[in-house]
């Protein structure tokens, strides 16, 4: 008899666990079905390739899609190197119990729990006003980078720490430099954690509304540079469903696009990281 199969007297617990799982799947299915039913009919090449008209009731979402991707690009370009550096410092060069390490970790954990609207106001005050970037894609992307940094650093640090000690010892015994063992052994070992961090952080960033209203802004024109204001998809959806009478249809369609985008981002990130894990940084 399979040792892992639940015994008979665990029937009730099994039932509860199954129904909880089924409930979660059902909620997800309901949400997807709702968006698909209401949104799928509006999706067409025109919708993806034209600019919004009549406050978004008619027309498409092309400038908004472009702005969203630019904001994400800025966010990841700024956040990844800083996250990598901090995580390596914390995991490799700082003893786990040291006061410095504990302080940084505590600060990051507090930051990770800060509501996004606070990051929005900070981003507005610091990037938009103090640094003079104004309402721009750059301000928005950098604000999102601040927002996802704690998450990225903490998952990456945990991933680096999870590398077994024998790998480090083996690398040292083979006379590998620290840089080489980091690149070929330790970082690839932390790849699944990096993937998890990217998916969580990227997901949080791409779905962000509050932080972006105050930083990248509301303008739905095609951005000419990173210093132009550009409306993100989530801001567009919020505006259509809350402030634009008759905007519900296009709000659903935009939500569907956002979900598909999220799905594509997830699959690509997973692909890149798993390849990186196999080959190491020296491809």
């Amino acid at each position, binding site marked *: 008899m399979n040792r892992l199969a639940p015994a008979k007297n665990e029937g009730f617990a099994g039932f509860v666990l199954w129904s909880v799982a089924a409930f979660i799947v059902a909620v997800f299915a309901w949400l997807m079905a709702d968006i698909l039913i209401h949104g799928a009919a509006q999706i067409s090449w025109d919708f993806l390739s034209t600019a919004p008209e*009549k*406050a*978004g009731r008619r027309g498409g979402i092309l400038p908004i899609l472009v702005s969203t991707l630019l904001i994400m690009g*800025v966010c990841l*370009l700024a956040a990844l*190197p800083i996250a990598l550096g901090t995580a390596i410092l914390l995991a490799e060069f700082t003893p786990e119990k040291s006061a410095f390490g504990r302080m940084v970790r505590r600060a990051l954990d507090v930051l990770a729990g800060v509501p996004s609207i606070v990051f929005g106001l900070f981003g507005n005050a610091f990037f938009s*006003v103090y640094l003079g970037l*104004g*309402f721009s894609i*750059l301000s928005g992307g950098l604000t999102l980078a601040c927002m996802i940094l704690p998450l990225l650093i903490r998952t990456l640090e945990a991933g680096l720490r999870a590398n077994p000690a024998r790998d480090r010892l083996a690398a040292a015994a083979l006379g590998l430099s620290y840089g080489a063992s980091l*690149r070929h052994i330790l970082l690839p070992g932390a790849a699944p954690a990096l993937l998890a961090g990217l998916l969580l952080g990227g997901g949080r960033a791409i779905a962000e509304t509050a932080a972006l*209203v*105050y930083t990248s*802004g*509301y*303008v*739905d024109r095609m951005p*000419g*540079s*990173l*210093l*132009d*204001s550009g409306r993100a998809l989530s801001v567009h959806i919020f*505006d259509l*469903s*809350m*402030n*634009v*009478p*008759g*905007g*519900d249809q296009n709000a659903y369609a935009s939500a569907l696009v956002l979900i598909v985008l999220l799905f594509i981002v997830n699959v690509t990130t997973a692909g890149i990281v798993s390849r990186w894990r196999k080959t190491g*940084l*020296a*491809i």
Partner: protein
Amino acid sequence: MLKILLLFWVLSLQIFLPQHTHAAGKEKTHLVLTGSSTVAPLVSEIARLFEDSHPEIQVDVQSGGSSRGIADARRGLAEIGLVSRDLKENEKDLKAFSIAFDGITIILHRDNPVKKLSNAEIVAIYQGKIKNWEKVGGHDAPITVINKSAGHSTLELFTAYFKLKSTEIHPDVIIGDNAQGIKTLSGNPDAIAYVSIGAAALEAELGTPIKLLPVANISPTLENVQNGRFPIRRPLNLVTQKKPTGWVLRFIQFARSKDVRAVIQEQYFVPLPE
């Protein structure tokens, strides 16, 4: 590989940055407008029209709430603030220019014999104290209460005028925008709802089986909203810190002109009197 990645990072940052300077030859004049999320979609459309006739100008509209509009206009972060209400006493240092009005009224199905409701009756219906049309002079039929979902400005205007708390309201149906409310009501003869007057008047004209009820004996016509007799009304304002000049003045004049009447009606707001 690490070097290539680093190089790519630095390069990509540099490619992005200089873009705004090399277009400096034909740099456009920027007007920044921030404020009320109710006014922002309307003003974005007006801005688009304005840009069409003045290509040398770029109007950036940002949303974020009326108080943000006030604050940004005061601090000079925005040339014009967007405010979806009258200025308060302590905001009289700013200049306000109304561009449109928003009024809301009670609507019933055309087949409902009830001709008018007093404010007290409306409050009682929305609090769930009156549950049958019989009590207010209608058929013997239960009342279906339609309410707006949280976050809509019409909900705030409605509850503020009738001094209701949104927690006191026990709706049977919760709707999002005006069109949805009118649609729900036209399919349910025993329902009551409140919507934007602009949207309701347009639909009633198009033959949708709804009727607009007077509030405090003032009939809900667009004229009464325009001239201020109708009680549940608010202006949509552009505010500036100083007396407007130059492009700011021209934009305000444009937003108050006849050229934007169609745009204002398209957003279900009531244009200024002619």
